[in-house]
């Protein structure tokens, strides 16, 4: 089971990455040009459904705890800034490179996976000289937004869901308007 379960999870993930178009250069790059918002729609839909399910499982005690990602302002922000350059530069991302390899993309199989491994190697080798130095700049905390601002988690989830649905509505309206303008 410990072999089949992660392969199964990854399989569904890779399947959905391909179905949503995340294995294609233009789909990823165009979200940064505001000409195709698929990446944003895909991510926000996943967040809304995932947070409802995960908080439900933990609140009802069906699962004792959830893995909480460490928040470190400098590392998260700096990492995100560097990440976006790579993502918009070549239209690639860590998991989509693997999913896109399954689609026969040689630019993913060879330089894509090769680059990922090279980046991972460089990161590990410079871990003490770079990562630990940046990590010293501020403290790290494993916290979640509801605890940080002391409000009920379901209020945060409801608000996040409402804002996301409103954003989807505005996006679809804008897409329709643009299409009508092009036709006119």
């Amino acid at each position, binding site marked *: *089971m410990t072999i089949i379960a992660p*392969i199964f*999870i*990854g*399989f569904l*993930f*890779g399947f*959905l990455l*391909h*179905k949503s178009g995340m294995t*294609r250069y233009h789909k990823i*790059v165009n979200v*940064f040009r505001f000409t195709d918002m698929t990446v944003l729609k895909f*991510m926000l839909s*996943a967040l*809304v459904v*995932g*947070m409802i399910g995960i*908080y439900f499982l933990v609140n009802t005690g069906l*699962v*004792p705890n959830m*893995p*909480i*990602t*460490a928040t*470190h302002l400098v590392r*998260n*922000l700096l990492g*995100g*800034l560097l*990440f*976006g*350059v*790579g993502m*918009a*530069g*070549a*239209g*690639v991302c*860590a998991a989509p490179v693997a*999913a896109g*390899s*399954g*689609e026969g993309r*040689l*630019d993913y199989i060879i*330089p*894509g996976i090769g*680059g*990922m*491994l*090279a*980046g*991972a190697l*460089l990161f*590990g080798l410079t*871990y*003490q000289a770079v990562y630990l130095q*940046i990590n010293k700049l501020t403290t790290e905390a494993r916290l979640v937004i*509801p605890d940080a601002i002391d409000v009920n988690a379901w209020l945060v989830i409801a608000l996040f869901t409402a804002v996301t649905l409103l954003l989807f509505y505005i996006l679809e309206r804008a897409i329709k308007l643009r299409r009508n303008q092009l036709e006119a």
Partner: protein
Amino acid sequence: MNKFVAYLKSPEWSPYVAGAGLGVVTILALLLSNALLPAPQLLGASGAYENLVAPVGLALDPNNLYFKSIMPPGITWAVLSLVGVFLGGLVSARLSGTFKWRKLPDKQWTEIFGPSVAKRWIIVFLAAALLEYAAGIAGGCTSGLAISGGVVLAPASFIFIAGMFASGIVTALIIYRKKY
């Protein structure tokens, strides 16, 4: 039933449907990893590349702290999951008939960068290396940090997403200039 099969075969799904499906996958990941691992984990990709390259890291620097104790070599949950991602992409592409050996992406790339394969491959290599390094600094990639951190409402995720979009927009502006 036929409708369902036809949907599985269609090359592109609504991003809302695929995204909601990914949300369900994070819930499944929590349930399965909680049952099978000492500590639960959600999605991830960048960590797997670190486990995979760790033997090389240790060969170059036998006392390396990171590859010795933090991300040691091994066929971890993350590595198996990445294998699954590859298989998922393969099966989806086969089902929808989009599988094709190719050296270059769609025409939008060639319109901007030209038809050179070498150019594409060098840029992909550099971009992949940069974003994997960045994921190490941040504490995860789009799946391991943005999605897995976001579904538990960790501030880390939203800080990362903000940074990613800010620099992504600037990068696209520089590359596309007048065509932006």
